[in-house]
């Protein structure tokens, strides 16, 4: 989300990228996207669907002639949203977590926006032509079926799991891998638990609404005492209604700040994990080649040694890129979380104050009404 002024060849201002609107047509969500080129003051607006985002991500993965590409921590793209009616909320929650909640796909759009901003802010990725084309071509680039990226999502094959725990040759990376494993797991858990809290807050708000509505049924104009009692019930109904709105606001605050932040953090930790895994795979490849070379007969040895050198060079490149990426990631992740935490605290504080004021007014009104 930060744009470094030292990055040349940036044609777009990362912070200007916004998803301003989303429309739903059956199963398909269309996003209205605006952004601004660095050298112009005019904004450009385009319309994209999820497949376009996917195309962009694949294009980023499959860039050629980019040394150490595998060492890059790719900004995580949220999963595809399936807004159809048949998709129950539980399914949506499983798939998207926090991004499934909130009204009108607000959180989801925000997450997509972050994704684009991070791509545009990345020193290497921002240079990718695909990004330009994605942001500024009026025609949807997703229609071009490009090559599938070299690396797709990590599968859960047992073999992969074994590779993941392969011991590293470099302490720095071994530590990083350990820390990342921890952080990725913990932030995922924290995100899930916050999601539970938000869901319960929403249920509580609903229960308040139900109670408040039921109180309205107590209205009875038959005689003076019934009228008096009805007034009391209506007053309580108002109070409970206020409690309900309070809860809704608290839940939505949680959702739009901390929830979004934890979700992003969790997905980013996964992205780092994927990068580290790629590097580990390369390491395994290198070690396998080395072993092969040692065992090789003299006539094949030269070829193998040349091959080994190539792999080693690739591996070293990946490692050096990875190191940079890791440092960049560490500092930015602290900043990202900081901003989310501050935003969350401020918005919750405002809401808390607002409702303290409202309750206070209700209390005053009640005391005045009821003083006998």
């Amino acid at each position: 989300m930060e744009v470094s002024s030292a990055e040349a060849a940036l044609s777009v201002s990362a912070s200007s990228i916004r998803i301003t609107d989303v429309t739903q047509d059956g199963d398909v969500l269309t996003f209205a996207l605006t952004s601004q080129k660095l050298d112009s003051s005019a904004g450009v607006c385009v319309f994209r669907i999820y497949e376009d985002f996917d195309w962009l991500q694949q294009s980023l993965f499959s860039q050629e002639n980019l040394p150490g590409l595998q060492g890059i921590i790719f900004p995580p793209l949220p999963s595809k949203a399936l807004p159809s009616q048949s998709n129950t909320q539980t399914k949506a929650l499983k798939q998207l977590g926090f991004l499934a909640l909130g009204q009108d796909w607000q959180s989801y759009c925000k997450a997509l926006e972050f994704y684009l901003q991070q791509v545009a802010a990345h020193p290497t990725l921002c240079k990718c032509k695909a990004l330009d084309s994605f942001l500024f071509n009026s025609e949807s680039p997703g229609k071009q079926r490009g090559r599938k990226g070299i690396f797709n999502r990590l599968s859960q094959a047992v073999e992969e799991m074994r590779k993941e725990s392969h011991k590293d040759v470099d302490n720095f990376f071994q530590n990083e891998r350990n820390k990342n494993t921890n952080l990725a797991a913990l932030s995922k858990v924290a995100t899930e638990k916050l999601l539970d809290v938000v869901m319960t807050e929403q249920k509580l708000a609903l229960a308040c609404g139900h109670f408040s509505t039921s109180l309205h049924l107590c209205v009875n104009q038959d005689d003076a005492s019934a009228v008096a009692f009805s007034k009391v019930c209506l007053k309580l109904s108002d109070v409970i209604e206020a409690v309900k709105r309070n809860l809704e606001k608290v839940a939505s605050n949680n959702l739009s700040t901390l929830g979004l932040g934890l979700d992003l953090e969790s997905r980013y930790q996964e992205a780092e994990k994927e990068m580290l895994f790629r590097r580990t795979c390369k390491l395994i490849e290198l070690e396998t080649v080395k072993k092969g070379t040692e065992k090789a007969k003299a006539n094949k040895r030269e070829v193998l040694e040349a091959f080994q050198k190539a792999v080693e060079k690739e591996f070293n490149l990946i490692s050096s890129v990875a190191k940079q990426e890791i440092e960049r990631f560490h500092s930015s992740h602290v900043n990202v979380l900081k901003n989310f935490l501050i935003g969350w605290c401020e918005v919750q504080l405002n809401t808390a104050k607002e409702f303290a004021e409202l309750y206070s007014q209700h209390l005053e009104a009640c005391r005045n009404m009821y003083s006998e």
Partner: protein
Amino acid sequence: MFLSRLRLPSSEIQSTLTCNGQSAMSGGCGRNPPPFPDNEDQEAELDTQVLDSDDDDDEGEDIFTGARSKPITPTSAPDEGDIFSEEGSYVRSDVHHATNGLHSDEELDLFTEATVELTLTNTTSQGRREIIGPTASACNTTRVPNSILKPSIVTKTMEELEEEESGDQFELNIAVTNPEKIGDGMNAYMSYKVSTQTTLPMFLNKTFSVRRRFSDFLGLYEKISAKHSLLGCIIPPPPQKSVVGMTKVKVGKEDSSSAEFVEKRRAALERYLQRVVAHPSLLQDPDVREFLERDELPRAVNTQALSGPGLLKMINRASDAVNKMTIKMNESDNWFESKLQEVENEEQLLRRLHAAVDSLVNHRKELCSNTVVFSKSVAMLGSVEENSALSRALSQLAEVEDKMEQLHQQQAFSDFFILAELLADYVRLLGAVRCCFEQRMKVWQRLQEAQSTLQKKREAEAKLLWANKPEKLQQAKDDINEWESKVSQYERDFERVTCTVRKEMLRFEKEKARDFKQHIVKYLESLLHTQHRLVKCWEAFLPEAKAIA
């Protein structure tokens, strides 16, 4: 702990309407109202639901009642409804002689010399009944409520009834505290301290306390009900029995659900007593005084036997029979019919409201546990994080969430004790109100029967005259006289009960509105308190978040 302020009128004889303290309904009936809800299973669920949502023991019904406590007043109710026997006698230190329109010696004793034991249990004393007549004219110099003087009681307007409500204040505060477990195993029981603080002269001391157990409270209810329900009073129902809850306590399960159960019961017992003493007639009942004052009470054993399910069905059937009578009742005005309908409607509404609040309380408790889990997960995240400022901020975040959990917990308690229990109490009180109406119908029924018997006697006499059998004529004439006086007695009774019920309703409705108002204010105060603490939490966290570098 809620202390009630009881204001007793000193300037007028009031019947049952004048208490301005906690809502005090007096009304008993031959049939006691089902503690809410009606469904036995539901009740057991209700008890456990709030206390311990993990408890699936819905079979834990009260072995005696099916989780209902319904002490039953003997069906052989005395047929003289002395509605004014308890009423009209108030404690005043300055105007003893003026207090009673009813000058029975016993009643004077009650108020002038607190040390004398009163035998007001004998409500059907012939002597008292006769007093009412002549007293009315003899006490013109005293300020006697019009209701006693006026022959046509039922024509009294509501305004006049309301005017009677005023008076000086005597204090009576009751608190139920210090629950203690006595004994071990299944014979164990909880003993509660009942403390009274009063300026009423009818008590021996100004401050005193005794220890009582739950069955004592039920015993008190039985005694009161036996005496006062026939008069058309609305008698406050006692808290419900709960085998599940008590068993946990007996077994010695030292967890939060047992503690909650004991607290719930303690608070319910306190409210029960406060309602009893807020009712002017009940306060003067010597059983009530004895309950508050006497060190050792004889163990009330009937409470168990009388709450069997068989008896329950009998009551229900009796009540149904009475209900069918109402159709034939020829009301001089629509008031009773429409009021009863209102009461029934309201009871249903309050049940719904209670269910809504119950679900609210449960959701809040769920929020508590979710918050705790989230807090732990954030704490773990903070412990692993390398950046020290972020790590500190995350642990602070975990602490904030912990504090919020406490706030949620407190709010859940408020929801429960302020709103849910209020609604539950009123559902049961409305049941007591219904009983009160039914009591009136019973009195009417008795009148009808007497009238038809009188008619038969007259016909018998006519037959004898026609058949010319003079020797049996005297007997027939005697019969007719007997029944004529009975009929006129029952007519008077009916008028009195009608008047009492009207007054009781008026008082009940006022008290209900007052009660609810008080509770809304309490609830708002608790909301505001929580909200302020929440603001403080966030204000404390903000600098921590900003300090992350």
